[in-house]
């Protein structure tokens, strides 16, 4: 294959795999937005917190990998529930921008605690679940098994979510989200639905963190603005999904991953911060041209 063609091929493969992480984050963002109209800026920090917990369990306390993952996810979920309890619920009557600032506060607090608890080793590494990689035939893109596992988890998570929201329990939740007052009248606890939503979102965030952390070295705030930052790309994926569509969030995540990777092509090498520039430009174009998203099912547009 020719030079540029191969480069683009590699960028697409890498972008799609990186996009899996964004998609997981975006799914959590969309879940929360559908439930409460909140832009959750703590979504990525659910991931970093889970990652740090798993790291501590695995490398500091010597737990087995599966228990470490379970512990990390549990910590992420606990943080999600705490966020709901301490910030989102008390601010339920405040303006949505206020809640946004509140969730950003949660993210910052989490970062602070990560710095505090792990201040001896500022830069951390964690072994991968399966430490091997291979080259994609023809294109020659390096792919780690860890990334494939992430892809698999994304597929499973999307399927589970799709099935869940078609089940009676899932439909009840959607009803409660759309018509809270009516739901209370027929005896659905809106509060419990809200807790469940935040727990699910935090779980998705935790998965994103625990799966993406081992690919790189990480520091506090890894998923928000560190090396593995997925907050802004996750939000962009959610915007592409019109903030509402689950399949759209997955498609959006993969798209954003690929767009961002175009910044690594060799003719962009002279441009400083090409990835950030592409993301900013892409976001502007999307919001100016298609503010209601691209990957949106027709019914969702009408709603």
């Amino acid at each position, binding site marked *: 294959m020719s030079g540029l063609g191969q480069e683009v091929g590699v960028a697409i493969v890498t972008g799609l795999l990186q996009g899996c992480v964004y998609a997981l984050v975006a799914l959590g963002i969309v879940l929360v937005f559908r439930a409460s109209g909140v832009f959750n800026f703590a979504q990525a920090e659910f991931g970093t917190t889970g990652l740090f917990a798993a790291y501590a369990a695995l490398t500091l306390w010597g737990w087995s990998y599966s228990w470490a993952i379970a512990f990390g996810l549990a910590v992420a979920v606990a943080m999600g529930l705490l966020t709901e309890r301490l910030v989102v619920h008390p601010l339920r009557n*405040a303006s949505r921008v*206020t809640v946004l*600032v509140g969730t950003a506060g949660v993210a*910052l607090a989490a970062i602070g605690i990560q*710095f505090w608890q792990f*201040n001896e080793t500022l830069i951390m590494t964690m072994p991968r679940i399966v430490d091997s990689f291979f080259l994609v035939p023809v294109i020659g893109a390096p792919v780690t098994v860890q990334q494939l596992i992430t892809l698999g988890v994304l597929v499973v998570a999307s399927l589970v979510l799709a099935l869940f929201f078609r089940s009676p329990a899932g439909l009840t939740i959607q009803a409660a989200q759309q018509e809270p007052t009516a739901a209370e009248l027929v005896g659905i606890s809106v509060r419990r639905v809200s807790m469940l939503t935040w727990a699910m979102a935090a779980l998705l965030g935790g998965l994103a963190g625990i799966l993406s952390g081992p690919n790189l070295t990480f520091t506090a705030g890894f998923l928000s603005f560190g090396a593995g930052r997925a907050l802004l790309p996750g939000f962009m994926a959610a915007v592409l999904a019109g903030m509402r569509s689950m399949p759209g969030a997955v498609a959006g995540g993969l798209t954003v991953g690929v767009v961002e990777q175009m910044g690594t092509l060799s003719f962009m090498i002279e441009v*400083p911060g090409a*990835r950030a520039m592409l993301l900013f430009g892409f976001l502007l174009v999307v919001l100016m041209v298609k503010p209601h998203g691209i990957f949106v099912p027709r019914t969702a547009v009408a709603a």
Partner: protein
Amino acid sequence: MSDATRVLPVVTDASAPPATPAATPVVEQPWRPSRGGWVARGVVWTLLGWVVLALPLNVLSPFEVGVTDVDVASLAVIYAIGALSLNVLLGYCGQISLGHQAFVGVGAFASAYIVTNLQLSFFLAVGVAALFGAVQAVLLGAVSLRLTGLYFALVTLAYGSFAQETLFGITSLTGGEGGKPAPRPEFFTSGYRYYYLCLAFLALVLWIDWRLTASKAGRAMAALRENPRVASSYGIDVRAYILVAFAVSGLFAGVAGALVAHHDEVIVPSSFDFRLALLFVLMTVVGGLRSRTGVVLGAIFFALLEEGALVSMFRLEGFFEGLLGLPTEFVSLVVGPVLLVLTLTLYPGGIGQQVAPIRLWLTGHRFDRHAGAVDDVEVNDVRA
């Protein structure tokens, strides 16, 4: 009710005297403190003036203030300007900015470039930095006119990282990661003198901020923040005044940027990261949106906390490092967000509300414990 249904003849007698004579307003004598009250206020004012003006020079001072402490004080003053800048957007106009580090950074690099590369005067550089800050803010503001609040927050977030990595990464202009020298102006090279220079700029910014809120632009912003429809029916050009708010905010941020550049004397792009943006949000919200005093105090508080000065001033190292295992440099990272969340959920007036009784007392009013109460931290939601 029967008589009300009768159609009365329409009064058209134009020569009738005006219904309500515009009587000379009866002005109730406002409450004034007694002589002793004035003396007490005078003493407190003198103390405040002494802390701000004399303490750094070790005039009549029981402490020894070193040059590093004065540098921290200058930084606090500069942060106050930056926080007032965000307050114009977030507080007065209800527009969120999560990319405020870029606003400040643009000013910083502009000023450093003018002084270092063009060899022009510092004061000209501050002016140009303010202008650059305003221009980039207005460009971003033009985007905000087309978006609702939450989406605009995303744009500012993306803009912040774009500015930090792309704009500030243009090595020929900014020196890249190697840093850009930004020497202090001739007379103000010493930390002490630079402190007073920063104070002078803060005074200027406070003056503008005060006149903004006391003039038609400030009233227009308050109206459009809460209810753009009513604002426009009052004859306010909503879009134009949103842009005015961005311009003023950019001006302040540009000044803050220029001052911070020459304060550090060498600047690198990585110091204008997302954490700085969040720090400004902390300062303004914990300080108390729309409360000028509160925002300034909030900025000073976080600047001192960030630099560790507050911890050492109150000898709290033992508590934080010994008891909690929390190193001083991370105190602000842990304490700040907690204060933010507490402010949002429990004490929406922030520091501004805490000090409102004292502020009113100092300006010759009664001491009222409940002054400055705020219902909630309100940011515009009409467009969100």
